[in-house]
């Protein structure tokens, strides 16, 4: 469902367009993480970008071109209910917690449950323990986090936006997994023109409860 455009001519490979949502409580360092990745800067006075809520990155993975669109989401509790509007139609989700903050890990668990319920197994999940530079103040055990990630079919990563650790790997890995998912998807659908029947509708307004996307491009919400 991720394939946006086929080759422009013979011999040109496909370009994948992926939407990745960034979820996590406030203060876990979502913004720092993505700014480090896209701008390679941390708490820098010279950051030129106007905003860090929507960032894009172009990648080339094994000859496959990928356009990554990273959607930041508001992490405050009061906006929690708006989650489904953000992560609809996304190919991947990065769930960030702060290793020094047990609560933020609990939040991640809630999101995982929600995402699996709404989007099923179509979406690639990454659970990210940020701020490993504060290892001494760790409150979430490595064992616990990794076991949990495995149990929900997500991958677990440790990062530090401050020290630029693990971020490159995180995104690269995620892209590879999303390409795989997209390819299996294509094969399953026979690469026919009907491929994006469910995916082409970017945003839908839901009245009461967020509607599962699996209803298939029908807008009688």
């Amino acid at each position, binding site marked *: 469902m991720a394939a*946006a*455009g*086929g080759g*422009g*001519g013979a011999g040109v490979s496909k*370009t994948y*367009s*992926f*939407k990745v949502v*960034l979820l996590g409580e*406030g203060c876990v360092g*979502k*913004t720092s993480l993505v*700014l480090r990745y896209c701008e390679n800067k941390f708490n820098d*006075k010279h*950051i030129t*970008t*106007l*905003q*860090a*809520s*929507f960032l*894009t990155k172009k990648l080339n993975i094994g000859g496959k071109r990928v*356009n990554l*669109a990273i*959607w*930041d*989401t*508001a*992490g*405050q509790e*009061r*906006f929690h*209910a*708006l989650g489904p*509007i*953000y992560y609809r*139609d996304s190919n991947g989700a990065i769930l960030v917690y702060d290793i020094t903050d047990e609560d933020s890990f609990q939040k991640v668990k809630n999101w995982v449950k929600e995402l699996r319920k709404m989007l099923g197994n179509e979406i690639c999940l990454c659970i990210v323990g940020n701020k490993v530079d504060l290892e001494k103040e760790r409150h979430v055990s490595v064992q616990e986090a990794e076991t949990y990630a495995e149990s929900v079919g997500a991958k677990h990563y440790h990062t530090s936006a401050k020290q630029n650790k693990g971020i490159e790997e995180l995104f690269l890995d995620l892209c590879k997994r999303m390409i795989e998912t997209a390819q299996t998807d294509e094969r399953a659908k026979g690469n026919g*023109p009907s491929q*994006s029947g469910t*995916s*082409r*509708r*970017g*945003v*839908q*307004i*839901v009245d009461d409860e967020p509607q599962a996307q699996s209803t298939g*491009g*029908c*807008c*009688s919400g």
Partner: protein
Amino acid sequence: MSLKTERRGIHVDQSELLCKKGCGYYGNPAWQGFCSKCWREEYQKARQKQIQDDWELAERLQREEEEAYASSQGAQAGPQSLTFSKFEEKKSNEKTRKVTTVKKFFTASTKSLPKKDIKEAKSPSPSLSRQYSLETDRVSKDFIEFLKTYQKAGHDVYKMSKIFLEAMYHKRESNIDEQSEFTQDFYQNTAEKLQMYWKVSPDKVEKVTDQIERFIMTRLYKHVFCPETTDDEKKDLTVQKRIRALHWVTPQMLCVPVNEDIAEVSDMVVKAITDIIEMDSKRIPRDKLACITRCSKHIFNAIKITKNEPASADDFLPTLIYIVLKANPPRLQSNIQYITRFCNPSRLMTGEDGYYFTNLCCAVAFIEKLDAQSLNLSEEEFSRYMSGQASPKKQDLENWPADTCPGVKQMHRNLDLLTQLSKRQEHIVNGAKKLEKDLIDWTDDVTKEVKDIVEKYPLNIKTASQALAALESENIEDDKLPPPLQPQVYAG
């Protein structure tokens, strides 16, 4: 005396009140000085003339378009003629087909009027239909110009768009979701055909899709924006009322990271508000999206100036909510629905515009469900604000932009002063009441204390009389004493 001047003020010469045509009846400024009968005649004439003008314009445009196509076709013919004869055949086939389709849509007053034309002729106000056709014609001209650069593919797109429009016209009575689905299918099929059949690069396909959207939506807007078959209008009103009821929400309650005291920031806020309001005036979904994007950029600027760091979603969404509350954009739900239904899908799915649009949807959803908890207020405070019994305006005053009318500012300052005064007065009254109570209490206390003491040490008059009696008895005994010495006179 004042009566006199008044009378002079409204005095009008009798002749000015009569119909301009001189029929002897009184005229009316609403009818441009004509009487009702003459106005109707004049209006009919003007109407006829305008309809005539419209036909002429349509005919002229049609001629121009045909010429334009003929010349583009001619330019193409050069290199094409070298290819196989098969292709030649196909091309000429297409040529004839093209002419008929173009004719079908642009012939104004031929014998067999196509349905679309009949409808346009029927539209109630001639000036309105003229405006409509002018803009639509400009857009279709641009569209044709644009498609020329794509040669045969462009021609094909034009043809497909026309067929689509006709099909949409037949669907005009059906469910809006069906129409939306049909439009989305059209976008997709066209894009696929361009890519697979005409081998157009993805970037260019995107551009063509944008132009197609522009072309078809300019024509469809009137019929598919806030259609009567849906409850969009009702939703618009609900949202509008809701936002109005929430006029008291302050930036502090939403934790908006924007300091409007800074002139530059308040400037950005005003611009953002203008942009979001402007959205309603656009016809094409992409133009509407552009308004939202511009609004968002202004918000980011405001945040950046205030916080001196790039805005995250944690900052952006509350600010957008605040802007929407302040702006109360017209027909908000209709616009969102329209964009969702008819926008070029790839834009909404992953693009930057899509992100801002999603945030707007979130803002609206938040506003609809907003309660005491989401503003960190107690239920009581919230209901008091909602019912208008109280207003948190006081905090607001400090955050007012510098260019607010000084009179209004003074008024609010005075109101504040009055509130403070009344508070102080209340304080004094309370103090006085307390003092009074204290005094009463004190008297009571003293009385009680005295009473207690009296009870504890009752006044024993008996003993006192005994003592007295004793004293007296002593006195009695005193009698037994020898009489006092009497002065004795000694002879001497």
